[in-house]
């Protein structure tokens, strides 16, 4: 490689207030001409000390905070946290609670992917997909708001199930949505996939090969776009994913474009899962057991547990060390975006500066997850 003298290098600062860093990431980028030589990601602008806060609060008091770890997919964080406690206390949620959890989580996955879709295209300079994506996103959010009472911070799961039963009206609206969603997905594909500008900015850019993906502990759609078939829902099924028929999309192209395609396909699979859950729930609408009778205020679990869930961004782990008191001794959140951020230096090196945003956008990083 050509040796670059120090005076030809230009350091520029991007962020923390920058529209395409998806929050508050800061990057110090070294350039030679327009070519990126090095990127130094600086994180921590949203570090709120969530892991320390767990140690000062009881298990119940910590529950609403958990949603804020990943504001685009709050259900997954609540599930990981509660599943850990349930394992420690040997509580098994009822069948209906499991189905309700699955259907809400899959809907949440769609909202998260839709927001990613809009923002990713916005980063590349296309603003209309953003509006298209938000039309569908608002439909799901309206349903979830009527079910849980909140648009984003649901705080809906509780020990051994969910707080409120799902009724026939909401189920019908879910059905209506998922019947219609296929046309919306088709619309996105027609709008985006054939666009020559989009293709030239994403194809063969930002390649993650298998070794790098494993080295950097990349999970989720980013990993599956590199040809490794790894999905927790299939590998060690939790909830009712055993009984559900769905596929895990895998592509071998390793580039930004395949990460886009994988996420569109995942939304389609989520829709399939939602319909299957709907079919089960509509036949069991009379079941009443949706949560456990144990008083959440006075639980005193003991032991240690690693609770995992396949979140929209990858493997989310909640590790709980409980010492038999009312408060957790230590809670560690293993969040997928934290590891994707590290990769950015590897990926964008030797590309031009405008490619940085397309590569970074395709990784689906959100900052509260990175900083916690």
């Amino acid at each position, binding site marked *: 490689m050509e040796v670059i003298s120090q005076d030809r290098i230009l350091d520029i600062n991007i962020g923390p207030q920058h529209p395409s860093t998806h929050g508050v990431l800061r990057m110090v980028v070294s350039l030679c001409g327009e070519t990126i030589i090095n990127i130094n990601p600086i*994180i*921590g602008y949203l*570090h709120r*000390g969530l*892991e*320390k806060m767990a*140690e000062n609060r009881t298990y119940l008091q910590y529950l609403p905070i958990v949603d804020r770890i990943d504001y685009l997919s709050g259900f997954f964080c609540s599930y990981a946290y509660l599943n850990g406690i349930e*394992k*420690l206390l040997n509580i098994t949620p009822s069948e209906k609670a499991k189905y309700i959890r699955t259907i809400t989580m899959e809907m949440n996955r769609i909202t998260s992917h839709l927001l990613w879709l809009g923002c990713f295209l916005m980063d590349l300079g296309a603003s209309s997909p953003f509006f298209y994506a938000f039309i569908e996103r608002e439909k799901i959010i309206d349903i979830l708001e009527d079910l849980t009472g909140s648009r984003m911070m649901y705080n809906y799961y509780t020990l051994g199930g969910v707080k409120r039963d799902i009724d026939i009206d909401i189920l019908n609206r879910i059905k209506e949505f998922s019947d219609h969603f296929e046309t919306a997905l088709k619309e996105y594909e027609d709008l985006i996939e054939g666009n020559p500008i989009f293709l030239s900015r994403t194809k063969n850019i930002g390649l993650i090969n298998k070794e790098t993906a*494993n*080295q*950097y*502990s990349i999970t989720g759609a980013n990993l599956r776009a590199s040809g*490794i078939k*790894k999905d927790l829902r299939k*590998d*060690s099924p939790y909830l009712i994913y055993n009984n559900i028929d769905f596929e895990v999309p895998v592509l071998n192209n390793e580039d930004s474009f395949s990460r886009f395609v994988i996420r569109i396909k995942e939304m389609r699979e989520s829709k399939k899962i939602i319909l299957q859950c709907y079919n089960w729930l509509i036949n069991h609408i009379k079941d009443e057991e949706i949560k456990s009778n144990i008083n959440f205020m006075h639980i005193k679990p003991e*032991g*240690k*547990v*690693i609770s995992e869930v396949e979140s929209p961004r990858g*493997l989310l*782990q909640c*590790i709980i*060390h409980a010492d038999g008191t009312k408060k957790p*001794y*230590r809670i*560690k959140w*293993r969040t997928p975006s*934290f*590891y994707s*951020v*590290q990769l950015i230096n590897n990926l964008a090196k030797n590309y031009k500066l405008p490619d940085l945003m397309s590569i970074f956008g395709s990784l689906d990083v959100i900052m509260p997850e990175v*900083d*916690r």
Partner: protein
Amino acid sequence: MFENLKNKFEILRESEYQQDIHSFYIKKEDILNVLSYLKNSPSYLFERLDCIYTVDINNSFEVIYVLQSDKYNTKCTINCNISYEEEMPSVTSIYSSANFDEREIFDLFGVKFNNHPNLKRILLPESFEGHPLRKSYKMQDERLRWNNGSN
């Protein structure tokens, strides 16, 4: 499954997570050897380091490496007990993802990692005082005075 590991290295203690995840306590001098053995040996192939985390327990730190093997679909953890002043060897040469993890532990607990490429605070400002996730931490940073008084 872990017979080979037990024969090859000295295991101080064993414990278990719920859902059958084994954890092995080893000496901190062995950590690099154990991890590279687990990563490369065909009977384990723990190719991914899910995360590293630390617990402040019994006036010492417990540094815990969570490993994942895709081939055998298993998980295990390797634990090291160190005192407050001791330093750990960095495992970035084996798993690149350990880079940010170790910086985070250095930031929040104050554990130093030898041979780390870029060991400095990651989440908190560079001039922050104290390591907040230690059990003995008291809020003492000079920035906290912004929270007093009103405008």
